[in-house]
């Protein structure tokens, strides 16, 4: 029964990864790529300062986005799970949070233009309030815009798993805490947050991997001014430099897998479904 799914994954996941690893040792000329076995691509990659800067930038995006999505996602899920009292409303509001996930990311990125542009809503509002005199240039096509878009796109990856674990918390535990004299903040800190950790971990895995593997958000929202590893790869691809793109891809994949490996030590995904 599991054979078809296995076949698809072997052909479209395992083989491609193997192919990337193989090609990362190949050589490239301007027009073609040649099978070979040398470490030139890796030497170039690790010998270049750009690589380290770009990897650092990628981690920066991942960390900042993670902090924001976790904060917002937790608060939203907490409201839904513990403050909305009827199940119908919980379902309706939860669906409202998840619907954007099923619409196009690219269009959701584009839709920030009228907000953040030089003559956009944010700038004209701030000017009319007298907060600023001249339009701010760093709203669109900047790191700020990149992070904003990441948070916009990926917060629901936090909301869903956190809400899921919160809904499975036995309400009598909270009552017990209250009977024992705990304040609201104490309940939150000593009961709810520890019990919600698996959900936060799953959300973290999603957000971190999505941000680290992204190239399109960074390209679009930074106006090609910032770079992360994904963009490094996609630039190489655009130049048909597949071997060097593959070498970068291998390093990126290893980095992501190491991060996930660490995170998975804290949570058993199958138990949490």
């Amino acid at each position, binding site marked *: *029964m*599991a054979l*078809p*799914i*296995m076949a*698809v*994954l072997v*052909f*479209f*996941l*395992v*083989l*491609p*990864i193997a*192919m*990337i690893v193989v*090609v990362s040792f190949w050589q490239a000329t301007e027009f073609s790529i040649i099978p070979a076995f040398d470490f030139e691509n890796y030497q170039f990659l690790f010998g270049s300062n750009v690589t380290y800067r770009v990897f650092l930038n990628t981690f920066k995006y991942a960390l900042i986005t993670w902090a924001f999505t976790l904060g917002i996602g937790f*608060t*939203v899920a907490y*409201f*839904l799970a513990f*403050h909305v009292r009827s199940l119908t409303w919980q379902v309706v509001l939860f669906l*409202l*949070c998840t*619907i*954007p996930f*099923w*619409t*196009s*990311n*690219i*269009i959701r990125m*584009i*839709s920030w*233009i*009228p*907000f953040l*542009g030089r003559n*956009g809503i944010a700038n*004209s509002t701030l000017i009319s309030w007298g907060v600023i005199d001249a339009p701010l240039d760093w709203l669109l096509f900047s790191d700020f815009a990149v992070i904003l878009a990441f948070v*916009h796109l990926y*917060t*629901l990856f936090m909301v869903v798993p956190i809400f899921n674990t919160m809904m499975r918390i036995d309400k009598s535990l909270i009552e017990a805490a209250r009977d024992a004299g705990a304040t609201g903040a104490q309940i939150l800190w000593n009961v709810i947050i520890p019990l919600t950790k698996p959900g936060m971990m799953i959300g973290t*895995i999603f957000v971190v*991997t999505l941000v680290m*593997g992204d*190239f*399109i958000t960074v390209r*679009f929202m930074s106006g090609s001014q910032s770079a992360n590893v994904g963009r490094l*790869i996609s630039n190489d*691809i655009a130049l048909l430099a597949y071997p060097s793109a*593959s070498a970068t*891809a291998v390093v*990126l*994949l290893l980095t*992501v*897998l190491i991060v*996930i490996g660490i995170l998975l030590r804290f949570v058993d995904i*199958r138990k949490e*479904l």
Partner: protein
Amino acid sequence: MEPRPKSFYVLGAFFALFLLFLYGPTITIAILSFQGPGGGLTFPMRGTSLHWFRDLFEQQAVGDIWGSFRRSFVLGLMVMVTTVVLSVMGGLAFRKRFRGAGVLFYLIITALVIPSILISLGVGLIFSQSGLNVHWSTSGFGAQLTWTLPFGLLIMFAVFNRFDKSYEEAARDLGATSWQTLRHVVLPIIGPSLIGVALFGFTLSYDEFARTLLTAGSYNTLPLEIFGMTTNVTTPVLYALGTLTTVFSLLMIGLFLCLALWSARRKARAGTDAGKGML
């Protein structure tokens, strides 16, 4: 009922702001897509018109939008059906131990966390090096499955974790074959969740960009077409297209949700004969 604590209103306001943050930008471009013919990409509105929507229907104005929409739609359906069928089979398989279960589980997780561009690059390389043509319905199709199948399978895990095995035992005790048990007991019970899997399969495929980037070949899917437009189209026609495809997505989501609701009701009605017994 006890009165709502003060924190309810604070958190409620936060939640409302979050919804505004989620939907505000999309609503803005929906409004701006009705710009007058002289309008630009930002406010103010220079009149209102359907000018930019009309532009979309003129082939020359902006690439092959309708062709790409058709391809995305067909591909979405292909991915949807495959995802549902394979996820159910995988979900059923995972209820018992089998050889390779651990490996398959880790492959699923890998498929979920691997940067999309790696799938794109790897599948593209395999096809080009083995002399095959990349095409949205072959390489693109497979590449998208690596994104939809993990979601489908994870949903099935969640479903079967909550599945009461005594229904099957009852069916078997009544002499049902394993196929009859599956067909008349298991599938009707998990039916509503399958609509959820289908929703994931279709919408994730319909909107997928990175995994189709190098695997779609010379015929673009809609997200690729839209992305191409962002670099060279600077008129609200971009918003008009964005609005149309978002409306289409919302219609599909609405359709799936209604179907799920309907089938859950039907299940509740057909699943019990309580109260109809002859006393």
